[in-house]
């Protein structure tokens, strides 16, 4: 940590090129074991976006004569009870899971960040009020919230995503609030006040950026939770409605065939969920190591 230490990242920065900085970031990401995860995630996103186009089959096309076919060359993942191609449904299901999961988490994280930062930083009556409200939200499990929203709005992708997002908010708000409370009493905040910075300036320029690392770690772990919750709602029939392919509902549809030997209908989307969840957990852990501002002194 001394001035004479030659840090390759610092050296790259000194060159002052943007490309240099990106390359340095990539190298550092490798140190944190993040690189494999990032490659995996990129592959997953590519499959979700491009897969359906490349495979080219309609995931909803019913072919009753071709029902329950075991995997072979024309149907690598087999077909379901209506003769729909499982690979095509798997690929378009990936889109739904990714889109719904990620947007639910983003929504929850952003709202939670704002609520937590405001209540932690300004404190007082507002803090008390927000906390009681969040405590109330915390009492609802995602599934219960999903059922009530499905009742009110009719089942579908929107209420499912909304339910997951709303029930996620308190978790982010809590984490952010406690982090802000501890940052608020640090000397660098006092130094900013002494310099004459406004409270909003301190909150947005100094405190929120310091909290972002923790939030992004939690958010990437949260994607796993969201995907599972949406799949769970789909499994109960409260999520994405047929015939749209979604991994959770695909598992429901296939579960009665598990015992009769047509394992592929359920197991394939199950693997999909497993892969996405593992990737998002690994991303969270990698980010946690990478974003730790003192992480480089880790021995």
């Amino acid at each position, binding site marked *: 940590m001394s001035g004479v230490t030659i840090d390759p990242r*610092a050296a790259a920065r000194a060159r002052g090129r943007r490309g240099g900085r990106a390359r340095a970031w990539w190298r550092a990401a490798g140190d944190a074991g993040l690189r494999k995860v990032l490659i995996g995630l990129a592959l997953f996103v590519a499959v979700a976006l491009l897969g359906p186009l490349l495979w080219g089959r309609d995931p909803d096309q019913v072919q009753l004569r071709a029902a329950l076919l075991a995997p072979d060359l024309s149907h690598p993942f087999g077909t379901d009870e209506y003769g729909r191609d499982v690979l095509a449904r798997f690929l378009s299901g990936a889109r739904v899971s990714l889109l719904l999961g990620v947007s639910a988490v983003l929504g929850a994280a952003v709202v939670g960040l704002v609520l937590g930062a405001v209540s932690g930083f300004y404190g007082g009556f507002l803090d008390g009020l927000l906390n009681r409200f969040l405590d109330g939200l915390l009492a609802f499990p995602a599934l219960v919230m999903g059922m009530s929203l499905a009742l009110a709005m009719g089942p579908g992708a929107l209420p499912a995503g909304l339910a997951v997002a709303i029930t996620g908010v308190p978790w982010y708000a809590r984490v952010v609030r406690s982090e802000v409370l501890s940052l608020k009493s640090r000397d660098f905040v006092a130094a900013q006040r002494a310099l004459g910075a406004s409270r909003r300036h301190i909150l947005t320029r100094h405190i929120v950026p310091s909290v972002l690392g923790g939030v992004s770690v939690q958010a990437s772990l949260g994607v796993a939770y969201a995907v599972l919750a949406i799949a769970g709602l789909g499994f109960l029939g409260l999520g994405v409605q047929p015939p749209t392919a979604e991994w959770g509902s695909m598992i429901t549809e296939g579960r009665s065939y598990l015992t009769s030997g047509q394992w592929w209908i359920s197991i394939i989307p199950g693997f999909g969920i497993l892969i996405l969840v593992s990737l998002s957990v690994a991303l969270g852990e990698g980010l946690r190591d990478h974003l730790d501002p003192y992480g480089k002194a880790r021995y």
Partner: protein
Amino acid sequence: MTSEQPERRDGDEAAPAVGRTLLSVDDLRVEFGSPQRPIHAVRGVSFDVRAGEVVALVGESGSGKTVSALALLGLLPRGARTTMASGTLEGIDLTGVGDDELRHLRGATAGMIFQDPLSSLNPVKRVGDQIVEAIALHEKGAGRKAARARALELLEQVGIPDAGRRIDEYPHQFSGGMRQRAMIAMALAAAPTLLIADEPTTALDVTVQAQILELIQRLQRDLEMGVLLITHDLGVVSRVADRVIVMYAGRIVEAGATEEVLRQPRHHYTAGLLRSLPRLDLPRGGAPVPISGSAPQPEDVVPGCAFAPRCPSAVERCAERPPLEPSGERWLACWEPATGTALDAVAGGEADAAGAAVVPAAPAPAAASAPPALAVERLQVIYGGGRRGLRRRPSAGVRAVDGVDLSIAPGTTLGLVGESGCGKTTLGSAILQLVRPTAGTVAVGGEQLVGRGDKQLRPLRRRFQIVFQDPAASLTPRHRIERVLSEPLELHGLVRSEAERRARVIELLELVGLGERFADRLPHELSGGQRQRVGIARALAVEPELIVLDESVSALDVSVQAQVLALLERLQDELGLAYLFISHDLAVIRHIADEVAVMYLGRIVERGPSEQIYRAPRHPYTAALLSAVPVPDVERERERERIVLLGDPPSPASPPGGCAFHTRCWLRERLGNPERCVAERPELAHLGGEADHRAACHFSDEQAAHLPRTDAVTAREGRAA
């Protein structure tokens, strides 16, 4: 330690007989990290400790002193690789012992005390139970009752008053000093022959430090133990250690009898360390001379003498590593040993600085007409006062600052001294309006601050700034240095263009002795001293007239501390800054301050020109503080008579009535405990004479007659003359 009388210690006190070797180690090495990129914490260290002697391991942070001790007791984390050519503890070979055996050796033969007594005691267990547990670990047969009786005996032995009651209290009910005593009692539980003390007094106030050092010395004599004392403080070393081992970058550079080494350092690092220490026993002219640069990191490969890059007398041969060789009683690793005495070195500095450092007797007359840089009147901060809780019961609150008057002339330094909890940091925050004062006024450069709203205050904040103690915590971790320094410029609209901003950032970096290359760094990529320089540069960015320095050099190593002090003095000369320098370190204050204010429990008890206060303190508390600070001069340290205050500072939540100091006052006891001290609170009264010297003591005129024989300054001056 049984009375509050100043203790007389005779210089010719019989030295304890130095006996058999308790601990001996040869070529100890410790590595961390991967074998491909090892981090060398200790690079080959050999020493021994005999019964009845105190050996001090001295070095700055990262020198490997603590790691060496921990390695010997097998206390390092799993990743560490310890090797040694040979090592014995009480005749047991340390090279071949397993974990279990080592565990038994810890405690049974070697007790250990740590720096932070709060975190080394278990907060949820009673103090007595923790000691009983320590006894039971090593005496399997001991019954519960016998162990408890022994624990009580130990607590009495380490000087815990009312031990019978306190044995059942929890650590949080103990004060810092008492906790350290309890830790010592635990370390003594199994009657070890060797006591390893790792910075045992670093976290304590000076008056408490004096008590703990006395205790360690007494125990060492009574129990005929060997003590391995790990410390960075050469003053502590000169007070208690028989032998001293100086470490630098994982190796021993010099070892020998404390008196010899401190009087006549032969290694340039030892000499530099002594020179860079602000001396309480020298007037302001004896400026500390910093060692340039910073120590090598444990991951660096050091082929030659590790100190060579910073050494003023380095020669070509220093590229080759000098072996640690004996010359008489001394061991030394240097090709070109230093000559002369430490005093010469300091005196040399004195001569150099003599021209510049003749203390400006009074601020220039012109300053009298200009408004003072800081004027504080009857300032009061009460925490938690008013009506509190659901039932709105009135509470008195904690009077952290209670009616303080201060003023600082432009371009001068006021040193604010006090022990922890005296309210000095709160006073600093209240001056900066980071904490809103309950009453009183604060004016900076004639502008009244109290009573203004946040928005009105903002433009005024340009005029006064702060530099904090912990340089790591005071910089936003994710902001590059350029951004740290740009922000204040932009907040106050001090720059108009991008080019101007960048130029100003570089100018600021150069002003504090850092270069342009630091602009792109993150705070954690800098060393502590460099970070503190950035903190100073940030404060300077808005061109203030007043800077509050809140323990700003306390967290730095001595050699780096001297660098930062020199920087602060240069900036004051160049920019005409006024400083409020808050510190617990009396030597640093003596060196930097023109005027000094001493604080005790929220009030100023003595205030006046620095030289007068250090030469002739008029408040018994100031006298006790000055007397408690150890100085790195063995002869003086062992001959001088010391005022030892009993007990800890009272809690500011319930300060004693009358004179707040009366519960610990040695002078009051000398005078036969006059009732007046309890009944009436003394005002901060002018003492007469030309200078504005004030003290809040009813008996300040009678103190001189009772002061210890050898006063801090007179002894030294007599000799220097």
